[in-house]
C-alpha cells in the first residue's frame, strides 16, 4: 500500500480540535496562517439538528436516556468513552488508569462541566510551596493576561472575591443559587467552609452578536445549540472560519506520527483515514499537538526516526512520565427538610453548579499537601433512565418499610423528588515520575498504531486528602440535617472513596514544560526542546494540576503558545 502525500504545505498542522487545538486554530487562523486541523472523529456542530440531543425528552428514546451507548447517558454529547472499540489501551499489572477519549470535532469540550477556574499564584510553584513535585518555569503573572483574554473571548460567569489563590477575572454575573444550593451554603458555612458563586463558561449575558445567551435548560453536557456555553467548535473553530480564516478540517483522521526530515525537523504528520483505512501524509511548517495529554504523548513516542530513536522530543526520556489526574471523592445525602417540594417552577438553571467551595484550609496543619474544591449538585432534575429506582429507599430513615406496590408509590416518588444533595471533591494529586504512560510494544489498535500502556498508582498523600474530603462531607451533611446515602461514608478499606486515576478526566503532565531539557519535554512556550517546530498545547505540558479544573489553563497556555508561534514564524525562526 502506498502512502498518499498531499501536495499542499500548510503553515501549521494542528492535531486535535478540543480546547487546546481550537484555541490554537483560532489564534493562528486569525493571524492569517494557513491551517489544517486533523481530528480523529467526525465533524460536529452543536447546532446541527441531526446530532442534537439538547431539549430532547427521555421518551424520544426507546431506552429513555440509559447509558448503554454513552457512559454519561445517551443524551451526553461525547462520542467515545472509557473504551473505544478497536482502540484499546493496556495496564501494568496492579495499576489502573481509566482513559476517557472523545473523538469528534471539539472533543471533550462538547460535554464537559464548563467549570472554568484559573490556577492561582501558588499553583505554579508547587515545589516552593511544600517541597513536592516541581515548580513551573512560568508564574501566574505570565499567564494572567491570557486568562483575562480567555475570559473576555469565551465568557465565564463568577464573582471577584479577592481570594489569594483563586484569582479574580472578567466575569459575567452568576445565576442565583437554587434551593439545594441554599442548603449547602448554610451547611458548609456552619463548618467554616467558604462558599462562593460558581465559575462556569456559560453566557448568562451576551458577549457578542454571534453567540446566544443561556436559556437555563441545565443541559450543557449535551452541547448548546445557541452556542451559549463553551465548546471548541462553536466558540473557536467556527468563528475563526467565519472570520475568513484559512482552515481545512480533516475529520475521521487518526494521526499516526509526526514526520521528520534528515535534520530531524518536523515536516508534517501521517494519518490514517477511518473512511478508507489508508495512510496519508500532510506537510506543514509547524506541527501543533493538541490530541489530549496522553494521545499527544503517544504520537510523539510513536514518531521514531534515525534522528529521534527514542521518539520525537524524547531525548530526556520524560514523555509519558508525570501523568496525573485530579483526585476525586464523592458523597451524597438525603435531606428531610427538602422533602415534599413544590414542583410548579422550573429550576433547571445552568448545566452545573451555581455555587462551589474553593480550597480553604492551611496545609501546614494537615497530613497531606495541596487542596481540593467542592462541587455541589442536586435539585428537581429531568427524569431519565434510573429515575424512580428504589423510589422509597429513604423510608428506612423513618423506620418505614421499603419497597411495596400500589397507588401510594406516586406519593412516595413526589415526596422524595429533589431531596438529594451530592458533593464532589476535586483536588490535586502530586505529579510523580513513576506514574506514566508508555508504548505497549505488544499491542496495536485497528489502524496498526502501537497503543498506550498505563502505570498509575495513588500514594498515601492522595488517600489522606480523600479522607479529608469525606470528613468534610460528613460534617456538612450533619449540618444540613441530612442522612448519608450510597452505603455511607467509605473507610480506609476503600481508600475513602478516592476515585480510580483517570476518572475525573483531567489527564495532564505527560510532556511537562521546564527550563532544563534533561528533565522536561517542552520549554515555557510549549515548544519541544528537541525540535523547534513542534508544539504541544493540550494539558501535556502542565507541571502540576492544581485544585482547579484544567481547561481554562489549557486555553490560556494555548493562546500564549500561539502568540509565540506567530512571532517565531514572522521572524522566520521556525
Amino acid at each position, binding site marked *: 500500500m502506498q502512502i498518499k502525500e498531499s501536495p499542499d504545505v500548510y503553515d501549521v498542522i494542528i492535531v486535535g480540535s478540543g480546547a487546546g487545538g481550537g484555541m490554537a486554530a483560532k489564534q493562528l487562523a486569525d493571524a492569517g496562517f494557513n491551517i489544517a486541523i486533523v481530528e480523529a472523529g467526525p465533524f460536529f456542530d452543536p447546532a446541527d*439538528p441531526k446530532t442534537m440531543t439538547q431539549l430532547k425528552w427521555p*421518551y424520544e428514546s426507546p431506552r429513555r436516556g440509559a447509558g448503554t451507548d454513552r457512559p454519561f447517558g445517551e443524551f451526553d454529547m461525547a462520542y467515545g468513552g472509557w473504551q473505544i472499540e478497536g482502540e484499546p489501551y493496556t495496564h501494568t499489572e496492579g495499576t489502573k488508569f481509566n482513559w476517557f477519549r472523545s473523538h469528534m470535532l471539539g472533543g471533550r469540550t462538547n460535554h464537559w462541566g464548563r467549570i472554568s477556574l484559573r490556577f492561582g499564584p501558588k499553583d505554579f510553584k508547587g515545589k516552593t510551596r511544600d517541597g513536592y513535585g516541581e515548580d513551573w518555569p512560568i508564574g501566574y503573572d505570565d499567564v494572567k493576561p491570557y486568562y483575562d483574554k480567555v475570559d473576555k473571548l469565551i465568557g465565564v460567569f463568577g464573582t471577584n472575591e479577592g481570594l489569594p489563590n483563586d484569582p479574580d477575572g472578567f466575569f459575567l454575573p452568576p445565576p442565583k443559587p437554587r434551593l439545594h444550593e*441554599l442548603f449547602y451554603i448554610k451547611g458548609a458555612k456552619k463548618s467554616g467552609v467558604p462558599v462562593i458563586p460558581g465559575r462556569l463558561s456559560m453566557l448568562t449575558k451576551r*458577549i457578542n452578536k454571534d453567540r446566544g445567551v443561556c436559556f437555563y435548560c441545565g443541559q450543557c453536557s449535551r452541547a448548546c445549540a445557541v452556542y451559549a456555553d463553551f465548546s471548541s467548535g462553536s466558540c473557536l473553530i467556527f468563528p475563526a472560519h467565519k472570520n475568513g480564516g484559512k482552515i481545512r478540517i480533516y475529520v475521521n483522521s487518526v494521526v499516526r506520527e509526526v514526520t521528520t526530515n534528515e535534520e530531524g525537523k518536523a515536516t508534517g504528520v501521517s494519518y490514517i483515514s477511518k473512511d478508507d483505512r489508508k495512510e496519508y501524509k500532510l506537510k506543514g511548517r509547524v506541527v501543533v499537538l493538541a490530541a489530549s495529554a496522553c494521545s499527544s504523548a503517544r504520537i510523539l513516542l510513536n514518531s521514531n526516526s534515525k534522528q529521534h530513536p527514542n521518539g520525537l522530543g524524547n531525548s530526556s526520556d520524560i514523555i509519558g512520565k508525570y501523568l496525573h489526574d485530579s483526585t476525586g471523592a464523592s458523597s451524597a445525602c438525603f435531606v428531610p427538610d427538602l422533602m415534599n417540594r413544590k414542583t410548579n417552577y422550573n429550576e433547571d438553571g445552568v448545566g452545573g453548579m451555581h455555587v462551589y467551595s474553593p480550597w480553604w484550609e492551611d496545609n501546614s496543619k494537615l497530613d497531606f499537601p495541596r487542596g481540593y474544591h467542592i462541587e455541589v449538585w442536586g435539585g428537581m432534575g429531568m427524569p431519565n433512565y434510573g429515575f424512580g429506582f428504589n423510589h422509597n429507599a429513604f423510608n428506612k430513615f423513618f423506620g418505614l418499610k421499603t419497597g411495596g406496590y400500589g397507588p401510594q408509590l406516586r406519593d412516595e416518588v413526589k415526596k422524595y423528588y429533589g431531596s438529594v444533595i451530592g458533593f464532589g471533591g476535586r483536588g490535586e494529586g502530586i505529579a510523580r515520575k513513576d506514574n506514566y504512560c508508555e508504548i505497549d510494544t505488544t499491542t496495536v489498535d485497528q489502524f496498526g498504531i502501537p497503543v498506550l500502556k498505563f502505570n498509575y498508582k495513588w500514594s498515601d498523600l492522595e488517600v489522606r486528602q480523600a479522607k479529608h474530603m469525606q470528613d468534610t462531607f460528613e460534617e456538612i451533611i450533619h449540618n444540613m440535617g441530612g442522612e448519608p446515602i450510597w452505603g455511607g461514608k467509605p473507610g480506609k478499606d476503600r481508600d475513602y472513596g478516592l476515585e480510580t486515576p483517570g476518572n475525573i478526566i483531567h489527564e495532564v503532565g505527560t510532556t511537562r514544560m521546564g527550563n532544563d531539557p534533561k528533565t522536561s519535554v517542552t520549554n515555557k512556550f510549549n515548544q519541544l526542546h528537541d525540535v523547534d517546530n513542534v508544539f504541544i498545547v493540550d494539558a501535556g505540558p502542565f507541571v502540576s494540576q492544581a485544585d482547579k479544573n484544567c481547561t481554562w489553563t489549557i486555553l490560556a497556555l494555548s493562546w500564549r503558545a500561539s502568540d509565540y508561534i506567530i512571532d517565531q514564524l514572522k521572524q522566520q525562526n521556525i
Partner: protein
Amino acid sequence: MDRRESIKALILGTGAIGLGLQGCKNVNDDPLLNQEIAVAETYFGRTPEELERIEELNEEQLFNEHELETIAVLSEVILPPKEPFGGPIEADVPNFIEFIGKDMPKLQYTLLGGLMWLDHEANTAFGTDFKSTPLEQQKQLLDPIAYYDAEIPMKVQSLGIQFFSLMRNLTLTGYYTSELGIKDLGYQGNQPNVWDGVPQDVLDQHGVAYDPEWIAKCVDQSKRGVIAEWDENGNLLT
C-alpha cells in the same frame, strides 16, 4: 440541513413564578427566549452506528406474547393507573421493558426467569397463571416479595425479591420518563426559560432565605441581552 425546521422556543410556563424577586417582569416578550433552535423531529441525536444498533434491537424479540401480557398486568398492579395521567400501559412501559431487556442482557435472566417463577407460584397456589389470577390473589403472591431490607445488598436477596424490585424499578422509570409520567410528576423544565431565583413561597416552606449581598452580585436578567463590558479591573459596566 434539509430537515431543518426552525421553531420559536417561547414557552415560558411557570418559570415566571420565580421572577417576583427582582425586576424583569415581562419575560414573555424577551427576544432571548426566541433564539432560534432548529430541531429534527425524527432523530434524537444518534450517530449512524447508534441508530443501527437500535434498529437491530428492534428486530429482535425478547418476550413472547404471554410474557409481555404478564409484564403489562404486573406493571399495572405495581403502579395502578390514575386519572388524568394514566398508567404504565399508556406510558408504554411493557415495550420499554422489552427494549431494555435486549439493551442490557444482564437483566434477562432475572426478567425471563422471574416471570416463569411467578407463573409457577400462581399455578401452585391457585391453579392458573399470574395474569389470569384475580387481583386479590395476585397481591397474595406479591406481598412476600414486594418489600426488601434496604440494609442487605439486593444481589443476595431472594430471586422473588430481586425480580419484583427490578420490575418495580423499570415500571417507575418507564412511567416517569414518559410524557404522562413527567406531567404527573410536575417537572417544569427542559424548555427555554429565565432562572431568576427560588420563588418566595418555596423559600418560606423550606425555611431558607437569600443573602441580599449574594443576590446583589447575581445576574440582572433584564440586562442579559446587553453585551458585557468591563473596566480594567474586571468590574462589569453593563
